[in-house]
């Protein structure tokens, strides 16, 4: 075992003698990547793919905000986009961000790279399935882009029937894309569950695993249990749309509310597919940068699993005013409050970890603190929506838009950025410009709050969501939100710039730049193809910062 203090004091070179060959340079050429079975390379390919999706979805988001800058949608005297185009743009923003970016971003990109390293494994359990999962993602992405080129769809990412079964556009192709992406997600989940069960290093029991692994494991459970329901639902939608089989459209004997039940039975757990990996990253960042063992390890681990379970029994809270039975509405509201408990437990445990720590405010830790603040706002505003009487007024307004952006972006994307900065030296072997990292993180937090905090006030005032035209009274808040989106967008472009710039210089990252204790910091940066020179054996707790006495 290597003592952490030695590592943090080390010079800016590898702690271990830097190996000549690593996973990046061992083999070369297109097929060495396209046909690779190495979890690290697949993770990097996923990262590149999801980053392009993030860029595309982000451009759509900026276009949405720009359109809403004024009630006339005019920029320099010209109408930017019309109502039909606007509806397509927000639909594409939702579909790309949910299915192509957030769901695969942490588990399939970062998780793929990091999780086997954390377990002390050579690879995931099924490397071929891992590659297949990536190609399904590529297939789904190509289908979605084809549908976009063919005119895109205006259904909203929720595909609510009977609108989605009657509107024009390549809806079948787009739902087909979501179907294929779903299977990509299932493959990843299946693979990760098997990996966690079978490939832990000698000496690593369930409660010796890093908390990131617990989070990814809980996510994988949801992925394999909930995603098939989405697949079935989308197939039913395609059958109705193309063959007139009445399932959801009342004109041919269907029930539109049934679709919403099916859809949210997947899509509510999907919210936890998105947020659990984010929480999992924060559970790594906080002990590492506090240089202190995690407070309440078991509570955090159990809270991940219990959030995964609770996620399956709260879907009806999307439908309080949608025509489900009143009894169901009451029961779903009560169950929804259960979500607050494990979420709160995690936040308190993170604060408990920081207490009396030795906290270095490097960029990943700044993102972790930003996460704590943004996720808390996202969680607390969820109480307004879980409470029945206030939900009736707030649902279907910008309040909901703001709430889920605080959880999905303020939570997951913030954690993702923290994780990306945290593992960037490990993945690329290079340090980024720390100064620019901190500047971008502060810009990101300010821009995010300008954009989305504003939208709580818009929603409570009665501004419905998915509106192209709006009443003049809402313009000041809309304009402020749009300006915020420019700050937010700039911070992300800045991040992309300094991260990519770091790739131009020679490898300079130490093996353990942050003083981490988990196993991924015990291999070289970047790791060799088989991860470890010799099989690591786990003898200590995952976040043990007690000084080691050398015998």
């Amino acid at each position, binding site marked *: 075992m290597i003592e952490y203090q030695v590592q943090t004091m080390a010079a800016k070179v590898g702690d271990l003698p830097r190996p000549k060959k690593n996973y990046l340079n061992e083999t070369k050429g297109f097929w060495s990547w396209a046909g690779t079975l190495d979890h690290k390379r697949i993770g990097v390919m996923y990262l590149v793919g999801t980053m392009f999706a993030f860029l595309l979805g982000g451009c759509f988001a900026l276009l949405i905000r720009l359109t809403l800058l004024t009630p006339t949608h005019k920029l320099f005297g010209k109408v930017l986009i019309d109502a039909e185009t606007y509806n397509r743009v927000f639909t594409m923003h939702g579909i790309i961000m949910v299915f192509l970016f957030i769901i695969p971003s942490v588990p399939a990109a970062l998780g793929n790279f990091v999780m086997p390293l954390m377990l002390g494994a050579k690879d995931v359990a099924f490397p071929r399935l891992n590659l297949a999962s990536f190609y399904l993602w590529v297939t789904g992405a190509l289908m979605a882009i084809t549908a976009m080129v063919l005119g895109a769809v205006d259904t909203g990412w929720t595909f609510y029937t009977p609108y989605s079964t009657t509107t024009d556009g390549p809806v079948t192709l787009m739902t087909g894309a979501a179907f294929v992406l779903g299977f990509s997600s299932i493959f990843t989940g299946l693979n990760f569950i098997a990996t966690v069960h079978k490939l832990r290093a000698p000496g690593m029991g369930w409660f010796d695993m890093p908390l990131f692994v617990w989070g990814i494991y809980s996510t994988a459970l949801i992925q394999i249990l909930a995603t098939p329901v989405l697949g079935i639902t989308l197939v039913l939608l395609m059958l109705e749309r193309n063959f007139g089989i009445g399932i959801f459209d009342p004109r041919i004997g269907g029930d539109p509310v049934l679709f919403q039940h099916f859809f949210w039975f997947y899509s509510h757990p999907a919210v936890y597919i998105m947020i659990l990996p984010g929480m999992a990253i924060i559970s790594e960042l906080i002990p590492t940068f506090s240089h202190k063992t995690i*407070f309440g390890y078991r509570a955090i681990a159990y809270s991940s699993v219990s959030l995964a379970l609770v996620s399956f029994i709260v879907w009806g809270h999307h439908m309080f005013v949608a025509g489900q039975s009143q009894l169901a509405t009451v029961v779903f509201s009560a169950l929804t409050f259960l979500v607050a408990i494990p979420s709160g437990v995690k936040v308190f445990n993170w604060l408990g970890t920081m207490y009396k720590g030795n906290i270095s*405010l490097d960029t990943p830790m700044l993102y972790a603190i930003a996460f704590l603040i943004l996720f808390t*706002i996202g969680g607390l505003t969820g109480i307004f929506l879980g409470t029945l009487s206030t939900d009736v007024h707030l649902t279907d307004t910008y309040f909901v838009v703001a709430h889920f952006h605080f959880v999905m972006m303020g939570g997951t994307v913030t954690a993702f950025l923290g994780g990306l900065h945290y593992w960037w030296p490990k993945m690329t072997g290079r340090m980024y410009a720390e100064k620019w990292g901190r500047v971008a993180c502060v810009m990101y937090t300010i821009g995010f709050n300008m954009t989305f905090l504003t939208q709580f006030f818009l929603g409570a005032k009665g501004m419905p969501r998915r509106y192209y035209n709006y009443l003049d009274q809402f313009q000041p808040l809309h304009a402020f939100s749009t300006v915020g989106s420019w700050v937010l967008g700039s911070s992300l472009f800045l991040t992309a710039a300094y991260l990519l710039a770091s790739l131009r210089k020679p490898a300079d990252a130490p093996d353990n730049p942050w003083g981490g204790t988990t196993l991924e910091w015990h291999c070289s940066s970047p790791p060799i193809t088989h991860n470890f020179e010799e099989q690591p054996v786990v003898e200590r707790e995952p976040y043990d910062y007690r000084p080691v006495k050398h015998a």
Partner: protein
Amino acid sequence: MEWLRNLMLPAQGSAYAGEIDTVYMSLFWLSVVLFLGIAIPAVYFAWRYRYRPGRVTPHVTHNTVLEIVWSVLPLLLCVGIFFWGLKGWLEYAVAPGDAMEIQITARKWNWAFEYPDGSRDAGTLHVVVNKPVRLIMTSEDVIHDFFVPDMRVKHDIIPGRYTEEWFTPTVMGQHLFTCAEYCGKGHSDMHGTLIVESQQDFDNYIATGGTEWEAYKGHMADWGKIQWERKGCNSCHSIDGSRSKGPSWKGIWHKMEKMRDGQVVLVDEAYIKESENQPQAKIVEGFEPIMPTFQGLIKPHDFEGIVAFIQSLGTQQAQQAPQTQ
């Protein structure tokens, strides 16, 4: 704190709105306290325990008592909030038996109302102050949602089903209602005015379609423009020549309009009347058959006004369209 409530929430149109606002504002303050309770320690710890080389941190793995406390206290708080929310919602869930019943039919992108005596109107909803009103709602096409911000109520409107919502308006005057479930390109234009008036004014409106129009005798085009807005014609027909979901009304009067099936029709009273009652009968080339019927929804003087309004928007020189056979 009244100013803060007014800043954050719409005007209150009913006593129920006041109750909901009390819950909202209480949750708001609770959230502010809890947020500060988390954000202040997070920032304070980051500063107080900032990095010092060589400092050894205590190895504290857990504290069972503390962890039980911070699990159980939020749980109790949540149970309390749940029941408080349930209380207000139960009131919303069941309409009183003596409520006036109004049928609402929603369709892309328009509202039709039918009052207890069978009289009908579109776009504008009249109700009586201090008298509970129960809305029985259905949709002709996709899902819509009747949202009245000032009353703090909304409910989805579903094709093939009847759903309902109710409120007791207490503030006379005009309130906004608007569609809150995404329904396509006219979604954000699908709003109208809720008029809360005295029983006398309401009875008058039901009996005669209101006497308001009489003030416009002699300049019916102005009355027609009001109808264009109130009945929701404006969500699909522009008056400045710009292209929308339906043909613009500018310069359309006495135009020889080419239809989808090739025939050419003169735009006159008869054609406009037919479009109102059977909108699918003739579809102008380049447009979709998406207009809902307004049969029975437009009173004679309203129709007169609309025709006068269209006339006032200019006459197209009768073009010689090629005869198609």
